[in-house]
Each structure stands twice: as structure tokens, then as C-alpha cells.
């Protein structure tokens, strides 16, 4: 069980790392949203799964309810995170921020 939790947590952390590095590396605002919106959600998914599993270990009613609450965090984040990503994207489009395309490198911002 502990090994499974550790592996899940490590996966989550790797995905979080991808998100953070992606935010730094991508060339423009629109492509930065891809790692920010997706990788963070998935990293949260993995690490919350690990936390819920670890909480379940002593298997009392309280522990079960706590792990269900941790899973509820997941559900709410899966509903709200794409919406937040979409809202930021929409704001960028409305602010007339030019998207970076191939061939005109460096003219992003």
C-alpha cells in the first residue's frame, strides 16, 4: 500500500513539475495555458488519489469519510479548472493578444 501511495505521489509530482516548467518554457500566453490547465489538474488528481489511499489505511468510518472528502476536492477541481482555463483564454482573446505561430518567432509579446 505504501509503495502504491509513494508511486502515485511521485507521478503527481512529476506532472506538477511538467506544469511548472511548461509555464516557464512555452513561448506565448496561449500555449502556456496548456500545461497550466491540464498538467496541474492531473497532478492534483494523482496526489489526491495518493492522499485518499493513504487515509483509507486504518479503515474506520471517519477515515472513509475523510478520503471521500479528498475525492470531492478532485470532483470540484475537475469541474472548475477547465472553466477557469477557458475564462483566462477568453480574456486573452478579448484583450487582442496575438497568438504565437510558427515562422514569426519572437514576435509573441
Amino acid at each position, binding site marked *: 500500500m505504501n509503495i502504491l501511495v509513494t508511486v502515485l505521489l511521485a507521478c503527481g509530482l512529476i506532472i506538477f513539475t511538467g506544469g*511548472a516548467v511548461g509555464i*516557464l518554457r512555452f513561448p506565448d500566453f496561449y500555449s502556456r495555458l496548456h500545461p497550466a490547465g491540464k498538467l496541474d489538474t492531473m497532478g492534483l488528481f494523482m*496526489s489526491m488519489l495518493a492522499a485518499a489511499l*493513504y487515509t483509507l489505511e486504518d479503515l474506520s468510518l471517519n477515515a472513509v469519510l475523510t478520503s471521500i*472528502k479528498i475525492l470531492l476536492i478532485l470532483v470540484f477541481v475537475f469541474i472548475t479548472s477547465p472553466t477557469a482555463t477557458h475564462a483566462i483564454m477568453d*480574456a486573452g482573446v478579448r484583450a487582442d493578444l496575438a497568438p504565437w505561430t510558427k515562422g514569426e518567432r519572437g514576435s509573441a509579446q
Partner: protein
Amino acid sequence: MDTVFFYSGIYLCLLMLLSLYRAVFGPTVLDRLIGVNAIGTKTTTLLVLIGLLYHRVDMFVDIALAYALLNFIAVLAASRYFQKRKGLYDERPRG
């Protein structure tokens, strides 16, 4: 197991530092918004990890749940600002 949670917590903090770079130095306001949104997600995780470290997850999970529910209100309000007010490059100081 505590050691695992401890080091993953520290690691998450360091990742936050990376996101904070984008939030502090991001060329546009929207980049800052992306950075802060990413920090919010990591905060949620970190709160649960702290709860696991203190062996009181039932206390900390409420705060994490509040973050999961409330985190996007600020993002929605800020994006609403851009829907109503045009213009992004207001950052240059005048003279």
C-alpha cells in the same frame, strides 16, 4: 511515510517558486493570472500534504475543499475585467 510527504511538500514549495517567477515577472497580466492559478492548485495539494504530516487530515481537508471551490472566483472576476475593459499593455509607467 512521513518522510515521503515531507520531501514532496518541500518539492511542491520549490515548484511554487517556479510558478511565482511567472507570476512576478510575467510579461502580461494574464501570464500573472496563469501563474497564480497554478499556485492555487499546488496550495490545495500542499494543504492536504500538511494534514497528512500532522496526522490530522480531517482538519485540513476542509481548507483544501474551500480552496477547490473558491479558487476560480478570482480568476473569473479578473477575466471578466478583460471582457469589459479592452487593452492589455497598461503596465508601462508613464514617464
